[in-house]
Structures are given as C-alpha cells and as structure tokens.
C-alpha cells in the first residue's frame, strides 16, 4: 500500500544513481575531511593543508584535545544535561500527548492549536524574561535553566508527533484495559507506551540532538568553565588553540561522534516514527 514510486527507464535510473552518489559525496566531504584532518600531525597539516587524507595517521590529537581542556569534564556535563532532558521530554511529552489524544475537555482544540502555534514563536521573544526569572531564582550558572524546561512536555513538535502516533493506536486497546480495571496512568504506561517504540525513538533522538547541540542556552546561563558543555567548551578551544587546527578538529569529532552513533542505533525506528504520524499527504 505504501511504497516508493519507481522509475523504470534505464537512463532515468542511471541518472538517479549518479545524482545520489555525487550528492552523497558532496555532503560527506566536509565530514570526511574533518575526520581526516584530526588524524594528521601538526607538521603535515601545516605543510600541505589542502590535501585531504593524511600520509601518516596520528592519534595524538585526540589525546591532546581530551586533556588540553577539561574536555572530559565538558563531555560528562553534556551527557548529564542531555540524558536528563531527553528522558524528561519523552516522559512528559507523551503524558501531554496522551491527554490531547484520548480525552475530551473544554478548550482542548483551542489549547492544542495554541500549542502548535508556539512552534512559530521565535525564542528571542521569551528569552530575556525567562533569563530574569532564573536570575530571580538565583539559578544563573546552574543547570536548572537548561534542564527544567524539558519537564514541561519537551516542545510542541515532539508533543505533536506523539499525539499523532497515539491517535493511530486503536482505542479498543484502552477500553479493554479499562474493563480490566486499569487506571489512566496504567493505560498510558502499559498500553500506549509499549506500542509507540518508533515515535518514542524519534522524539528521543530529536530531544537528544537539540540539547546536545544547544549553544545559546549554555552561553547565556553558564559562567564557570567547570560547568561548561562541549558546545561552549569547543568554542573556548577555538579561541585558545585556534592555531592547532588538527586538535580543534579532533575535539569536533568527539563532539559529533555520540550523535552519529545514536542516530545509527535509532535509525531503524526513525522514519517509521514520522511517517506513521501522518504529518500531511496520507
């Protein structure tokens, strides 16, 4: 029923493949080049910087990048912030989505559309007052401003994806559980969640990427270098070690690596999580 539209003409297919291959190469060049540069010695990079692959592979850049700054510390901080906010987003987001998809209440549609509309609100509009709130609460230079917002549903888009997915799960399952005396929380946790693997993986991946990538938040709220995340740590690295470019690239690779690994693990669910939510053309 669902499927891909296949061009059968041989010339057309050759064209499709050549475009794909050329495109894939162009898109991965900066990436390959980053990894390649991180494996070059300083001398080799200085003598022939435009050559892509290293003549001699050296691993010392990683070791230097890891120790030059408290990079391990930054990594740990980022892992902590990212995991807490990802788990919080997925849990609270799915609760909210459960509310929007299974219950009838006054102003439900109004609130749902209000929520969708917040996707269009530029963050700058709320940024300054939110900063003032955290300042009043004496939470500047702590992780609270970065973590707490994730406990409120984790963003409209995620809630939307979850809700669409929940709508696709037959209500009879809820009702059967209800007849067995299950509570609403039980239905959410034991009936809906186990069936929602693809969308949960998708939402978790989006939350993870968003927080791992977060630059402006830590830039505004964190002052003490020991509390820095990799994003601002890397920026600091650029200032103090800008000349040791191979090391900057090694640090960048370390920053990129977890997201790539996670993506490869979640990839199986990823597209299903979105396509089943029927964003549009269905």
């Amino acid at each position, binding site marked *: 029923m669902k*499927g*891909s*539209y296949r061009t059968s003409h041989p010339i*057309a297919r050759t064209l*499709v493949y050549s475009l*794909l291959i050329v*495109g894939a190469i162009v*898109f991965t060049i*900066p*990436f390959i*080049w980053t990894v390649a*540069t991180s494996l070059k010695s300083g001398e080799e990079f200085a003598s022939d910087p*435009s050559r*892509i692959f290293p003549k001699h592979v050296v691993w010392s850049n990683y070791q230097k990048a890891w120790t030059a700054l408290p990079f391990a510390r930054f990594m740990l901080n980022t892992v902590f912030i990212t995991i807490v906010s990802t788990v919080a987003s997925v849990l*609270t987001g799915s609760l*909210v989505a459960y*509310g*929007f998809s299974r*219950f*009838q209440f*006054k102003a*439900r549609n109004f609130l749902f559309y*209000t929520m969708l509309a917040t*996707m*269009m609100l530029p*963050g*700058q509009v*709320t940024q*300054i007052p939110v*900063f*003032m*709130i955290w300042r009043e609460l004496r939470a500047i230079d702590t992780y609270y401003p970065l973590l707490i*917002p994730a*406990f*409120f*549903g984790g963003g409209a888009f995620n809630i939307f994806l979850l809700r669409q997915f929940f709508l696709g799960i037959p209500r009879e399952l809820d009702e059967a559980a*209800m007849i067995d005396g299950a509570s*609403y929380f039980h239905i959410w946790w034991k009936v809906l969640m186990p069936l929602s693997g693809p969308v949960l993986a998708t939402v978790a991946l989006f939350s993870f*990427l968003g927080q791992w*990538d977060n*630059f*402006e938040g830590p830039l*505004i709220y964190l002052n003490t270098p020991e509390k820095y995340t*990799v994003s*601002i740590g*890397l920026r600091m690295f*650029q200032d103090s070690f800008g000349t040791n470019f191979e090391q*900057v*690239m090694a640090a*960048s690779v370390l*920053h*990129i690596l977890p997201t790539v690994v996670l*993506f490869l693990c979640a*990839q199986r669910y990823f597209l299903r999580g*979105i*396509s089943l*939510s029927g*964003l*549009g*053309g269905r």
Partner: protein
Amino acid sequence: MSVSTHGHRRKITHLPGFWGFLFISPWLFGFLFFTAGPMLTSLWLSFQKYDLVSVKYVGVENYRRLFFEDPLFWKALKNTIFYAIVSVPLGIICSLSIALLLNQNVRGQKIYRTCFYLPSLVPSVAASLVWQWVFNADNGVLNTMLRMIGITGPQWLQDERATPWAFAIMSLWGVGGARMVIFLAGLQGIPDSYYEAAKLDGASAWHCFRRVTLPLLSPVMFFNLILGVIGSFQIFTSAYVMTGGGPNHASLYYALYLFQNAFEYFKFGKASAMAWVLFSILLLLTFIQFKASKRWVHYEGGDK
C-alpha cells in the same frame, strides 16, 4: 468520543475534563510560565529602559531609536532577509530533490539516507568550526575544489561581498536533515494506486510529479516552508562562532545583534523591542503564507 466518567460520586477525579487537564498540565504550566508570561513581560519590557539596575517607562522610545537611529538594526535586518530569501527556497528545493531521489526505490537507500542526514547531526558549533576551514580562502576545501576547475574563489569570510553567500551555502549542508525526512515521510505516504491510476491514463513522469506528487505533498511543503522561514530568521550560532558578525557587519544577523544587545550590553528594553519587531515580522510573513496557501496547498478530502 470522550472517555466518559461513569461515577455517581462527586469526586474531583470525576469532574469532566479533570483527567485531560491533568495529563496536559505539564505543557499547560510550561506554556504559562515559560511562554505566555514571558511574552507579556517582554512586551512590557520593550517600553522600558531597563539595564539590570533600574526600570523606567520610556514609551515607544526603544522602537523609535531602532527605526530611526540605529543603522546596525537595519543592516542586521537586511542581512537576515537576504539569508532567508536565498536559503529558504534553495533549501526546500534541495531537500525535496533529495527526498524524491531517495524515494525512487533505490538499492542501498539506507546508506544514501545516512550520508545526506549526517551533516544535520553535526552540532552547530562543530559545524561552524569545520566550515570556517571549508571557507578558508587559501587552503579551504571549497576554494581548493574551485581551483581544480579553474576558478579563484573569494575570501569567503573576509570579503563582505562573499560572506552572505558563505552563510547561505553553509545552510545547504543541512538540507538532508529533518526537512528532507519530513518530505520523504510525506512521499511514502502517497499510495501507489494514485501513480498507477495516473499511469493508466498515460501520464508522463513529469505529469505524475506535477499532478499527483506535488499536490499531495503540498501540506508537508507548507509546513516546511513556514518553519523554514521562521528558522532562517533566527540564524545565530554559525555567525557567532565563525565571524562574530563581521566583516564590516556583513554577517551581523538579527538574532546575533539581538543577543549582543541583551546579553553583552544588557540593554533588555532595546533587545525586547527587537524581539517584538522580529515576532511581528514573522507573524506577518506567516499570515501571508497562510492566506496564500489557500491557492496551492491541497488537503485531501479536506481532513485535518
């Protein structure tokens, strides 16, 4: 289709709507405290002179100064509009093209998809550091490749005529990301039977694309367009890391200038006024797009 309460007792849990509100309460509280409240506060702030120590009502002074006495505000706005005009349509065309290619039932689809998706996994600071070098005038990847085909590339990040293009080019690196995946999801949601019917009628590939794919994909396209425009107006990290707004303010984007006013000069009143100008522009653009969408966005059977 409510999950009706069948109780006779008047407990709070039996009030109509109790459970629904309970479950959406995380979002509702977040909305009140982190969105609605701050929005009103920032509107109020935009009419104040506020500099961490004192607050003073100044009427529309912040707005007046932005419009009439701040050339950098206009510069930043112009830079941002240029970026949006170049990067949004190009981004949509490229991400749709990639999605169409990937949807051709190709062998090794997963590998290609990963290759195209990879760049959008790169955290923006790391991406900026990488692209700073890609754009390096003498030894960067881009100019090295241009040299191979006999073109002398510009000083991408030092020449103010080239810098706006550098940022637009860089934005294209991410077109294989979420936007493309959303297009792909939309494409895979189009039933094969539609294409088969079109083929039976003798439609060409182009005709299929024009008459079947595009209309059915238009809601997804609309979604990507709206969020693409909004996203492009908020370009920040790459400019902050790569150029700091230079050379000669050529990459001073709106969000960067706003950030500087807010968190470097601590002019909260002025920055709030800037935020509301940005919000008004985006509201207007979104409104226009919604109006225009009636002409081109096709909702199947008029459902959601």
